[in-house]
């Protein structure tokens, strides 16, 4: 049969950001997929080399809006390791609270977009309505809804008082109830299952081989979650990664759905045991040396390599984001799929092209 090449993207209704795939099809079945990037590359790693290492926090926060808090946290963690800075315990807990709020609003955003990708508009609106509450918490506690900008080298720039913590707990109870109401629809609805079960299957061995990260890897049965490293205050909280075994789009949506509830649990745990004390320490000197910093972003493992030379500028800041790691995995999922399933499969890795291209 004659092979045809069909372009998917860079502009496509399911893609909030530009990603181009060249799909080789026979009839309407995908035989091969090749990615093309470079539509929104901004050279942020390069910018980090010419900014003061403190200012670089603002640069990395703009790698991606949705997970800006995690980028700053990973960067600060790397610099703190090089400089031997011990972050105050209260700041470590505050970082976990805000980072889990970020994971929640990122996953809720994705769950809505995912519902939209298979045409379930009302489910999309329901998830986004819930997400607004999480953004309200961000605004009330940091002054910003998305780019919360709380991290500094040596701690955090804001604190939470007891009234704010009570409000977070009360709002999270509402979020938990609302998310729970959607569980049956997302996980048991006939149409949803028809569009997601058995689509874009990535078996465990293949996921390992292709270097998959985050919920994409965990949905294939790989217990890979950087929160298991116990960074910040996570070593003092009860945590087990959410996993599924089927490796399809349905399994990936189940993992993210359950991780929203898990984040609520982690925030509650953190609020109940957060110690009193200062939230940042004064940083003196300049970093010199290398570090490899990793944390779990909503989309998976975030990796920072930092090389500092004792001046105010870094020698090198290398950022490997989870979507970058999941693109080879996506190429492994697509062959054998119907063309009509491609949008759902592409969205199932929660692609963030701003992160990928930096």
């Amino acid at each position, binding site marked *: 049969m004659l092979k045809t090449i069909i372009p998917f993207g860079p502009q496509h209704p399911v893609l909030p950001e530009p990603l181009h795939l060249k799909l080789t099809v026979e009839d309407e079945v995908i035989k091969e997929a090749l990615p093309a990037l470079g539509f929104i590359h901004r050279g942020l790693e390069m910018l980090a080399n010419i900014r003061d290492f403190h200012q670089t926090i603002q640069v990395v926060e703009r790698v991606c809006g949705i997970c800006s808090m995690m980028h700053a946290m990973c960067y600060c963690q790397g610099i703190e390791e090089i400089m031997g800075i011990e972050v105050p315990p209260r700041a470590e807990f505050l970082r976990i609270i805000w980072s889990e709020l970020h994971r929640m609003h990122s996953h809720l955003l994705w769950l809505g977009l995912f519902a939209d990708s298979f045409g379930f508009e009302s489910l999309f609106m329901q998830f986004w309505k819930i997400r607004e509450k999480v953004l309200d918490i961000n605004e009330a506690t940091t002054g910003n809804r998305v780019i919360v900008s709380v991290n500094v080298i040596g701690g955090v720039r804001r604190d939470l008082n007891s009234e704010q913590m009570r409000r977070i707990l009360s709002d999270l109870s509402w979020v938990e109830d609302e998310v729970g109401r959607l569980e049956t629809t997302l996980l048991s609805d006939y149409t949803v299952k028809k569009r997601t079960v058995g689509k874009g299957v990535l078996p465990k061995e293949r996921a390992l*081989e292709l270097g998959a990260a985050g919920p994409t890897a965990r949905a294939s049965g790989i217990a890979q979650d950087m929160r298991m*490293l116990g960074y910040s205050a996570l070593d003092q909280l009860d945590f087990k990664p959410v996993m599924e075994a089927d490796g399809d789009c349905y399994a990936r949506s189940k993992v993210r759905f359950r991780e929203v509830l898990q984040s609520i649990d982690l925030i509650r745990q953190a609020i109940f045991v957060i110690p009193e004390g200062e939230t940042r320490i004064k940083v003196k000197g300049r970093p010199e040396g290398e570090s*490899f910093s990793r944390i779990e972003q909503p989309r998976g493992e975030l990796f920072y390599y930092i090389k500092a030379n004792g001046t105010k500028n870094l020698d090198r800041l*290398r950022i*490997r984001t989870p979507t970058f790691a999941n693109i080879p995995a996506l190429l492994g999922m697509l062959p054998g799929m119907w063309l009509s399933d491609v949008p759902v499969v592409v969205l199932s890795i929660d692609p963030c092209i701003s992160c990928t291209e930096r």
Partner: protein
Amino acid sequence: MQEEVIFVSSDILVGEVAKIKVEGFRFVTMSCVELDGNTVNILYHFDKDLTLKHLRLTASKDSAVPSISSVYFAAFLVENEIQDFFGIRFKGLVLDYERTLYLDEEVKIKPFCRYTLEKSDQKEPVTPKNATGS
């Protein structure tokens, strides 16, 4: 964080990476750092059970480095990225974008290099000044 860093040369690189794969390590990524006008450091990062292992290769900018994409397919993307940004060539790259992953075909500079080396027969040699300013 104390991790294992192993220094390798380009002739044993692929063999070492294959050994690491057999040991059950997952490919995380690669990082490239410019050392001076002629050489770069390429770091290969692997993970097993949340423990990192790194290979460190010092390579000359004008000689090709063996690609590890035949061992770990996932490496093709980052090797293409390094080709774009540093101008390093990877020999045996399974999917070679020939410096057009992010860049347009007409771009000759290596954006992440403080010094861009170009052949003398090129009409407009690129200087460090306009290499970082464009």
